[in-house]
């Protein structure tokens, strides 16, 4: 592939998707506005988040101009490198609060599981792209895909980090779903999950008693689920988070209390208010209308992503962009779901809003990938 300066410039201008860019900026600004209320203007984290935002934006531009074949060729090395880092975490990782999730690399430390959120769908999209040469994929193909997916899932589960491992699993699962996993497999799984939830609802008193331990979850994870079912059972501990954020959101009403006027957040009632619970700060101050506006932006972004995936020209691009778009949905749904008290508290950041460098970088790279794929389909059309 020729790769002259002109080519780069051409890609840069063509590659930027105007709509995604606008949504990106509006959401980033809304995120910064909410963060400023959560931490104050002079807090270091506010300026750090501005840097995060700029850095993520640069990453987006960078990824958007990469030649599409590069993305495909990166997939396998990225995945292998990610698995390697996860193994390093297993053996040399730093342990904080009982979880070994970080690798120290001299001046800073990184959380490799974050990287897998993009590397796994890329790897799977690459894999299906390679094996899909007729219209039906074999059972064997799905089996291998399942192995590719389950390895990082378990490595992250070992750290332990249930939230991230489920997210990585979901990101890969979407690729498998879009690649054509039979509904004869999907439907039973969905039915199983729904029935598990129903069992939990009906037998919560028995299952949540302290004598019963859930062999596949840690005690704190069990407590979070039980707290969700009955927040009042633990009003000062786990339930406190959910109750206070629900009060914050609810007391915002239709119009909100006004910017910087949220009493729940400013009186320190909302825990983790600049990271996972920032939506509560936003909802308290901007009310239902603000929330709906925010949701519409997310909605448009996801819709744009899915639209790009339909017009994408290769199966790799299709699968990757569709899975990235659905991941945005999962983030938004799980985060707002937990802050509003319909899902258990798991550490999932709200895209563009939550404070954090790697989370923002992931968003930037994801948007960059979407733009890149859109650009690729445009170029092909021109050539035809």
């Amino acid at each position, binding site marked *: 592939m020729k790769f002259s300066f002109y080519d780069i410039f051409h890609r840069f201008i063509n590659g930027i998707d105007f709509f995604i860019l606008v949504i990106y900026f509006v959401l980033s600004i809304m995120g910064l506005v909410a963060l400023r209320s959560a931490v104050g203007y002079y807090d270091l984290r506010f300026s750090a988040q501005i840097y995060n935002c700029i850095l993520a934006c640069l990453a987006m531009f960078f990824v958007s101009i990469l030649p599409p074949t590069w993305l495909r060729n990166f997939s396998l090395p990225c995945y292998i490198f990610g698995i390697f880092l996860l193994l390093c975490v297993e053996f040399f990782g730093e342990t904080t609060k009982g979880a070994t999730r970080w690798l120290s690399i001299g001046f800073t430390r990184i959380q490799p599981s974050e990287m897998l959120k993009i590397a796994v769908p890329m790897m799977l999209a690459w894999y299906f792209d390679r094996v899909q040469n007729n219209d039906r994929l074999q059972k064997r193909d799905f089996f291998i895909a399942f192995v590719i997916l389950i390895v990082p899932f378990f490595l992250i589960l070992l750290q332990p980090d249930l939230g991230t491992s489920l997210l990585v699993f979901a990101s890969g699962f979407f690729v498998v779903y879009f690649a054509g996993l039979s509904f004869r497999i999907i439907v039973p799984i969905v039915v199983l999950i729904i029935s598990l939830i129903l069992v939990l609802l009906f037998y919560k008193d028995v299952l949540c008693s302290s004598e019963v331990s859930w062999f596949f979850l840690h005690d704190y994870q069990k407590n979070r689920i039980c707290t969700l079912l009955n927040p009042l059972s633990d009003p000062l501990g786990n339930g406190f988070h959910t109750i206070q954020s*629900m009060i914050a959101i*609810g*007391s915002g009403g*239709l119009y909100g209390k006004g910017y910087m006027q949220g009493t729940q957040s*400013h009186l320190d009632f909302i825990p983790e208010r600049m990271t996972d619970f920032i939506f509560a700060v936003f909802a308290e101050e901007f009310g239902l209308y603000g929330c709906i506006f925010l949701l519409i932006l997310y909605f448009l972004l996801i819709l744009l992503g899915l639209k790009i995936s339909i017009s994408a020209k290769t199966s790799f691009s299709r699968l990757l962009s569709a899975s990235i778009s659905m991941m945005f949905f999962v983030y938004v749904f799980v985060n707002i779901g937990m802050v*509003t008290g319909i899902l258990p508290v798991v550490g999932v950041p709200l895209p563009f809003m939550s404070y954090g460098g790697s989370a923002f970088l992931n968003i930037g790279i994801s948007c960059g990938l979407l733009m890149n794929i859109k650009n690729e389909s445009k170029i092909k059309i021109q050539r035809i």
Partner: protein
Amino acid sequence: MLELDSQVKIIKRFSERIIIGVLFFLFGFCILIIRLWYLQVSLYEGLSEKADNNRISVVPMPPKRGSIFDRNGEVLACSNCVYTLEMSSVKADKLEALFQELEPAIKISESNKRRIARQIIEYGRYKPIVIRNKLDEFEVSWFAAHAFKFPELKIKSRWIREYPYCYEVSHVIGYIGRISDSDFSNLDDTKIANYRGSQLIGKKGIEKTWETTLHGYTGFKEIEVTAAGKPVRVLKSIDPIPGKDIFLSIDIGLQKTIFNAFGSKKGAVVAIDPNTGEILALVSMPSFDPNLFVDGIDKNSWSLLNNSLDYPLINRALYGTYPIGSVYKPFVALAALELGKRSPNDKIMDPGYFECGGQKFRNPGSIAHGMVDMYKAIVVSSDTYFYSLGLDMGVDELHDFIKQFGFGQKLDIDLDGEKQGILPSTEWKRKKYSNKKMQKWYLGDTISLMVGQGYNSFTLLQLAQGLTVLANNGLYRKPHLVYKTKSPMSEKEEKILYNPLYQVLLKDSNVSFIKSAMEDVINYGTARNAFLRTPYSVAGKTGTAQVFSLRGSKYNANFINEKLRDHALFMGFAPSNNPKIAVAIIVENGGWGSKEAAPIARKIFDYWLLNNN
């Protein structure tokens, strides 16, 4: 054609799945919107009432910081109560009116006003903002009488740190200052909670190294407040636990004696009790006033301290590293005896210089001492004798032996800012230089080491510790400053005991030979004049450390710039048969050790052995 057909099929199937996906996420968004509607519209009344009623504000109550005492119970640092005027929930536009109402009694400077206005924006309306510090009695009583006019203002008491001996012990005590972001990031999660409400933290010295002990535990008050932030009632209160008092092994009297003896000179002193490893005095000159730092040091004082070429903020006893010159000789001589390189009776001719490989190493002032054995070499401080040892002694052997005395090692004293110094070895030189040629060890390097010059670079603390180990016949005790803590709640005292860490294996005859040579340094040798007619016996050694090499020319202190003059050194312990105190002194650019450093030692010994006991 077949391929195109299958492509179309694939895309068709993919589109179907996208449609299912869209339905799925539309469903998800609907759930979220319904939930938000339910919370923000249906439950709005109830939840907003809850938000109003539910404002429990948690007020941290910082603990009183522990005091610091000397070994006799003299106060070196303590916390006193002062009054602060605080404000909460005032709108920015009402500020000016508020200031005017306070004007008759409580003055607020213009810069303070600007800070308050900025903090209102910064903190929001619900966090308290300090209006004035250190109110005097009139201001407090005026406010008490007029408090009804100012519902948003409150007088709060606060502990402030005071250091009664400002200059004498500043390098030991250190100081506290406002907690900075970097201080916060150094605290771990469990400690951060404990610092809610605390504004100050130990920045240097004992205040820093014993921070956890001194700080204590923050208490909490849970107060129900109204929508306007007015307290309604106290729901729960957990009292703070004050920090523990700390007793140092330092003797303030001895410390003052040294401080006065130094006058305007620069340098440092470390005095250790060899029987316990307790540090009796630790002085670094010039010094500074730690009281300046307590409430945030002003710009002028800071730039004066920070830009001074005398570096008053540096603790020279721990941080300064020096080639220690002749005071190193007893240790080298002991090494030669223990390693079997010399017997006490071996004699050499000292013509005033030592020649090796075409290079001349001179005695100070090129004085010729004639025939010298080891005893005489120590007493008259013959460099030539020790240069000649360099031919037999390997640098690595010397390194391994001397290391046991603590030279070139961090001694892990309970103060911050300790430097490691350099105890050279071939391995050290290999690591130090990247250039292969520079990595090579030369005989000349070894020869300079024998008289405490060359690559040698030690802290004064290491010298004092080495001397202590020698005075103890090789028993190594950890040097330390804190020997006792006391809880102000229970009055329970906790002694901090340090057991001897190890014994350097030495022959008694060798040690007593070196010690008697050091006694004769005092009786007949270089330090004679300083110790005339002492009622106790002293073993010691003077030293002069070159700041720069004079390349063989004669040294005349009067003709060279003061900054380039040699450092004067002295080390000694007394009484020599049963040491109660071991002292190491350096007077920077002082010239001769016998003239500048030894007289200070005399005052220290007199104070400790005659006045004190």
